[in-house]
């Protein structure tokens, strides 16, 4: 179209690509290498090639950690999506202004790190502040007690962590949903509930799957809530990675576990991308 030669755009990409390569791709390459290194007592590690770090995955102890991690993340993801779907759906039908206010709040919650979330929930569930006190005050229990640490308090924290992300994925999809579709179902004789189950839900199936996977990956990555809100038996893979890296100074083993966690997460993110692509294909 334009006969004049354009100056190449490559210089634009130079700096970002260099930055991402040096500070993201290299670290991963090093981490991969370190995962085969030998640990040095009292220091960091020394170059070697041994599989011992990976062989430790085969112990029942590690199996239990993995089962705990996946079980917790899956439970939290299901609870989150079951709550976030109707929440986003109703939200998208509210007035624009109300939507904005609630979205600002959701974003604020999303920006909170696990430290704050863990601290806030442990306070809310503690003996001297929040629920423990409240139950005592209304006479539900004899003496105030703490509801943390424990499985329920950990799940509450994980749900709190994952909920905003699920809204982030589901809200755009439901607000783009043609409002006449459920109406068409109603004019065809379907009750509101049946219209929801037979039309809205199936059309939203893909973004629901996407949200499930995303929240699963995010809660699987939770590194601090299990420590703050759970008991040692609830410690997940990321907690053990942190523990090995910082307190046991066994960076090679931590790196091996991180590679494993990475593979599991990448597989799931890849799955959600495939699901997403299918959706785009279907709508055109």
């Amino acid at each position, binding site marked *: 179209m334009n006969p004049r030669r354009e100056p190449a755009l490559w210089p634009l990409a130079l700096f970002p690509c260099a930055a991402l390569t040096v500070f993201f791709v290299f670290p991963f390459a090093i981490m991969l290498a370190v995962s085969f290194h030998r640990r040095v007592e009292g220091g960091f590690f020394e170059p070697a090639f041994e599989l011992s770090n990976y062989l430790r995955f085969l112990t029942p102890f590690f199996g239990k950690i993995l089962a705990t991690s996946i079980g917790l993340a899956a439970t939290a993801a299901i609870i989150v999506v079951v709550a976030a779907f109707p929440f986003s759906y109703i939200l998208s039908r509210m007035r624009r202004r109300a939507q904005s206010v609630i979205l600002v709040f959701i974003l604020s919650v999303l920006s909170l790190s696990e430290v704050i979330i863990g601290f806030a929930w442990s306070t809310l569930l503690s003996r001297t502040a929040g629920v423990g006190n409240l139950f005592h005050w209304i006479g539900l229990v004899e003496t105030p007690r703490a509801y943390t640490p424990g499985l329920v308090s950990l799940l509450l924290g994980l749900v709190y962590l994952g909920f905003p992300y699920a809204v982030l994925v589901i809200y755009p999809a439901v607000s783009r949903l*043609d409002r*006449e*579709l459920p*109406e*068409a*179902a*109603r*004019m*065809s*004789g*379907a*009750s*509101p509930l*049946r*219209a929801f189950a*037979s*039309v809205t839900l*199936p*059309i939203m*199936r893909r973004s629901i799957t996407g949200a499930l996977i995303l929240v699963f990956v995010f809660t699987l990555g939770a590194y601090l809530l299990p420590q703050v809100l759970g008991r040692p038996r609830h410690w997940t893979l990321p907690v053990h990675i942190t523990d090995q890296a910082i307190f046991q100074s066994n960076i090679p083993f931590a790196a091996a576990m991180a590679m494993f966690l990475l593979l599991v997460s990448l597989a799931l993110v890849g799955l959600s991308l495939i699901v997403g692509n299918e959706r785009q294909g*279907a*709508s*055109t």
Partner: protein
Amino acid sequence: MSGLSIRSLSKVFGGLTAVDDVDLEIPGGKLICLLGPSGCGKTTLLRLIAGLEEPTDGRILVDGQDQSGIPAHKRDFGMVFQSLALFPHLSVAENIAYPLKIRGVERADCESRVQELLRLVKLPDAPRRRIHQLSGGQRQRVAIARALAIDPSLFLLDEPLSALDANLREHMQIELSQLQKTLGITTIVVTHDQREAMTMADIVVVMDRGRVLQAARPIEVYRKPANSFVAGFIGSSNLIRCRRVAADAVEAFGRTIPVPFGNGVSSAGVGDAMLSIRPEDVVVRPDLEKAEFRGSVEFVRDLGSSVEIHLSVQGVTLLSASSPRDRPNVSVGQTVGILLHTDRAAITAP
């Protein structure tokens, strides 16, 4: 063949009156077009009839039966939506069978009914196709078939043809109107296109700002518009500011012009009014002798099937339309004579 009565129906959305005290009697078996500009309340009126909105005031009766409190899904009406609202996760046949399945119709009966409907809308080979594989016109037909699946007592359509291109649209208007005549089902179509309303309707209901301005046969609305808004909205019309000086005469351009009594506003009050006269009733004559008025030619538009001449008469612009055979031999800037066939003109409220 269900008749529909609407009694002093109103709908207010947070201070905004979308439908304002509407009374309407719709005989069974007819095709009615709700016509008006966007925001006139026609879609809200249709949604009130469908049960998708609750009226603020007033009642809707179908065959004398009050519909208040009956939810949309228990009214047994069929509806075609503006977006068509075909279910993207279901096939063509599953879409059409949806209302039947909801009502627990047997599988075999469902299938034969779907076949029958597909033949009716001239899509016999499509049942297995997915919605996104269909063209605009085919989607249209599937939406119509789905709405008709249960033999509804009322057939409601909200701007059903607005997504189609001009040629297909005209074709579907004729087809839809033939289909309605065959089935004899009471049908209400919302449209903002006056040609569409003229093509299909037995009765045109012209609306503006939530009110019904006129409800009559299309030709009546065209010939005897109730007011200048209707005259301007239905076809093009010359609206000339005038003074009514008698029951059957107005004064305009400094002359008294006779207008047959009963055209348009029938009350014989004297005062400011509008004379509505269609372009085909404004005749241009190159010879000035027999003319009532004189004007100058501003622009000539030859559309092939008709010729439009834009005239200026004492500062007022008039539009004249004639068939090519009667094309007056005039050119821009020329002073010409003008005749008004006022036997088909109407006096309207200003």
